[in-house]
Each structure stands twice: as C-alpha cells, then as structure tokens.
C-alpha cells in the first residue's frame, strides 16, 4: 500500500513541477549568495636595512650614546691597567670609531666608593687615560679623544658588594661630536 502511495505522490510532484519552478524563481534562495573572500596581496615592500653609516648619519649624539654604540670597560680594584677581557671591547670601540673619523669621544673615568675623594679623582683620570691610550694604540687620533675623571662622584649602580663595585670601576665612552 505504501509503495503505490509514494509512487502517486512522486507522479503528482512531477506533474506539478513546471508550475512550481516558475513560482520558486521569485522567492529568495534560503541560503543567500556565497561569501566572497576579500584579500589584499601583501605588497612586496621591505624597510631597507640601514647600513651602519646610514644609521650613524641618522642618529643624534644622544641616541648614539643611549644606544651605547661604544661599550664601557671595567677595572680591577685600585688598578688602572686594562684587563685582558676588556681589550676586545676596546678593540670593538676602536673599530667603530675608526669607521667614523669625524667622531670625537670623551672618556669618563669612574671609581667605586671605596677610596678617598681626592685620590679617586686621580685614579679615575688614570683609568680614562689608560683607555684613551689603548684606543690611540689601535689607531685612534689622540686629538679626538678627551678624558675626564669623576672619581667616585657618579656611581652607575648603588650597592655594597663586589659586583656593584666592579660595575662602578669603569671607563665610559661618550660621543661628543660626529
């Protein structure tokens, strides 16, 4: 019984089709249009990597110093001889300085707090001088390097342990002209 009923329904649907099809064209499709993906192709534009020279030209003195293009070196207690492990740093500083012959640099000598004020001014000056002499030995023009000692007036970090003292016993290289 079910089979002949299904067949009759199917037949009637087929007979009705042309009329139905006409009607359906006026109704919106239940699913709407397909989503079109909007994309923008990545432009093949790259920020050019500035050469060291271009960076140097671009940056102000303050920025160069803030970026610490010249690294500071540290000293042994009461000493002003250049430590072996600081020589590569001075070499790197000299390499950079020799690339830019217009640069003038001020070497600041500093001490840790364990010393008298008067003696530390002299000791800081000896440290700055030792750093300057090393740069000169690597080809730097002595006229382009000035020195100043702050003794123990300007510690980099505060503290009372050897690690702190070591950080404070230093020569810093400040670019004063480019």
């Amino acid at each position: 019984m079910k089979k002949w009923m299904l067949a009759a329904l199917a037949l009637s649907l087929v007979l009705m089709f042309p009329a139905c099809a006409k009607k359906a064209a006026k109704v919106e499709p239940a699913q709407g249009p397909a989503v079109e993906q909007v994309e923008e192709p990545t432009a093949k534009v790259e920020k050019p990597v500035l050469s060291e020279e271009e960076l140097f030209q671009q940056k102000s003195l303050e920025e160069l110093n803030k970026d610490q293009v010249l690294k500071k070196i540290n000293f042994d207690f009461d000493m002003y001889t250049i430590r072996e492990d600081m020589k590569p740093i001075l070499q790197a500083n000299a390499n950079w300085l020799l690339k830019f012959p217009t640069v003038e640099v001020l070497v600041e000598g500093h001490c840790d707090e364990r010393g008298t004020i008067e003696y530390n001014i002299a000791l800081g000056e000896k440290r700055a001088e030792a750093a300057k002499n090393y740069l000169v030995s690597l080809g730097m023009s002595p006229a382009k390097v000035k020195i100043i000692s702050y003794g123990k007036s300007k510690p980099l970090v505060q503290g009372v342990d050897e690690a702190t003292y070591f950080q404070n016993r230093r020569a810093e290289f400040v670019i004063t002209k480019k």
Partner: protein
Amino acid sequence: MKTMRRTILASVVLLLALALPAQEEITIRIREGMPMIPVALPAFQLDAAARGSAEAAAVYETLWQDLEFSRIFKMVPREHYAYIPAFRPDAIRFKDWASIQANILVSGQLELADDDRLIFSFKVYEVAGERFIFGRNFGGKKDLARLIAHRAADEMLKHFGERPLFTSKIAYVRESGNDRDIYIMDYDGQRPTRITFSNALDMLPSWSADNEKILYTSYRNLSPELFMFDLYSGRTGLISSGGSNYAADWSPTGDRIVYTSSKHGNAEIYLRDMKTGQEKRLTFNPAIDTSPCWSPSGREIAFTSQRGGTPQIYVMDAEGSNVRRITLEGSYHDSPAWSPDGMRLAFVSRIENRFDIYVYNLKSNELSKLTENAGRNENPSWSPDGRHLVFSSNRGGRYQLYLVDYDGRNVRQLTRDGENKMPKWQKPSR
C-alpha cells in the same frame, strides 16, 4: 648633706678619671695634660618683665655647649646648683660655689631692647680667690643669639690663653640629587649658608689663610676646574683649568696655594703664587701625587703619592725637595691634615676595606686611631685650636659630618639632612 658629699666625691673621682687618660698624651700641648677647669653657669638674669627669655635660653644653652665642648672647661652639672642657695649677682656667695667644685663662675644678664636687639653681658669670677676676672657686653640682632654666645665663649678661651674656636666655621659639600654645592655653617652644625649655586658638581672646599675666600673644584664648565670664591665681595674667579684641578690648600703665610692638577697629563702638585699667578711644579713622576697640605709653619707640605705602588703619605719641603715617606705600613692612606700645632698628621687609612681616621704623632712616631668600626670615615680637618676634628662618615647610612676630639673622644653628629661631605674647618685666625 650626705648626698652632697657623695656628689662631691663622685665629681672628684670623675675629675681623676678624666685627668688620667689625658696624662698619657705626653707630647701634646701642656694644656691637654691638665685637668679641665670646672665652670658653673647659673641661669641668666632678665628684666622684671622677663623679656627675651627665649633668646636668653638660646644664649645660655649655646654658651653651655661651647664651654663643655672646649676640653678646657668642664661644666659643673646643673643638678648640683640645687644644693646651694640661688645665684644672686649682687651678693655672690663664693663659698657655696666652691662647695660644688666650681673654680670659675660665669654670670650673665640679657636685655631685649625695644628695637628687638639683644644686649648680653657676662662676668667671669674666680671662685677660690673670690674675685672678678673679666666681663664683656655684646649687642646684636636677636636672631644672632647663638653667635653672641659663641663670641662670649671665645672670650673665655682667649682669656685662658687659648685660640678662639666657637665663632669658627666649617665649609662642606651638601648633596641633593645630582647637584652638589658648597655650604658653610657654624662649628656646631647650626646656621648653614649656601655658597655656590651651580647646577654641576662643586666640591672639595678649602679656606684661605684669612678665612675670607674659599677655593673649590667645580665641574660647571664640564671639567674639574679650580675656583676661588670671595665670601665678602661675592666674586668667583677661575684659578686653574686643563685636566683635573682639585685638593687646594692655602699656605699659612697667605701668599701661596698648593693644589693637584693634571694640566700637563699626570696628577702632580703645583705651587701657585696668588699675587703674581706664577706657578711651580713640585712633583715629577708618573705616579699619582695629590692631596697637598701645608705644615702650619709654611715650610713643609704633606701629600699623598702612589710612587711606591700604593697611596702613602709623604712630606716634602715647600720647594719640592727633601721628600720623605711618613706612612710605612698599610696599603692606602690619603687626605693628610696637619694639626695647627704642627705636631700631628691626621689622615684616612684603608685597612681591610675599613676607612678610618688616624692621627700620627710626628715627634713620637705614634699612630692612634680616631674612628672605630663605624662606616667609612673620610676627609679629616682640624679645628683652629687643634683639639677637635671634623670628618665625614656614612656610619648612619648616608654621609654626614661628625666631630671628634683629638683623642677619639666625644664623637658627635653635626648634620642630618640630605648628604654632607668634605668638611674643612676654618684656618686658625692670625
């Protein structure tokens, strides 16, 4: 009566106790081996309306503290005055004051005039002889009460054959943030006055022989240069530049200074004639030479040199010749300060990373330690009378100024606000 006797006994014992250690100091001036003179200072007389009582209290307390500080006088404790009848200027009962062990009696009277000026009169009596010794009257604006007391105390010193001390000033460096400026204050830490106003580091002040000028180092032109400030004209002049210029000391004769400069490359000591501006280099070696300091005779200069490998104290003739080493032991000595009597050198030594102040007796070759296990102690400077020193110490955390007697006794803190360093006591007045 029994209590009183006990008190008298106690003060005699105290007197002996104070006298005994003093006798060990054989080579120091005679007065230092003598017992201190007991002084009674009864409350001052005011007018009937008791006007100026606040000022009278200020003068009284200041005078008391000065005399007690002196190491010449010793104040009879105030509690003892209660055992005898109150002081009456018109009827002094010397026997009563003798009974409480007073040798000297000082009476004072203070008036506050209508123009707000003070008049302070004081009289000094010898108790045993029951006689008036001397008296003085001082007048001044009422905010100068402390200065008036210092003047009176100086008169006491002068009368007993001593150099004035209490009107002397101390120059020092006060630090706030990245700024450091020179200040001066009374010897007791009161009435600080700012002297320099640069935004850079100003440091290491040093008095001229006449105490009217201050030499100091300033980074105001971006390098450590030596300047001279005239306190009374207000003028500042540049003395030396090029390299580092610092640690100046004015000769006792007033015509020359010595200072450290690296103007020719290395830290050396220079002698400069302040009238002609002519300079003479005194040290010649590649080591550090610094911290020159005149002997009170003006014939010798003590200084620090690292020529032997470590910083040590040396003495040379004022012309730079005849150099001899003073410190033989230890690996770090600096900041020599020659005592006004010429007999002693105070300096800072670092021993096992402790910085303490030592006094070296040039006659007996004895070394004594003034500070003990209390932070870092630096920059000793003698009082004009040679009985006291001022120094800086971070024993309380931050650097502050302290006083100590020549024998290490009576340490007292002078400054409390901010951070204070590099004290220099005025030179003995000539």
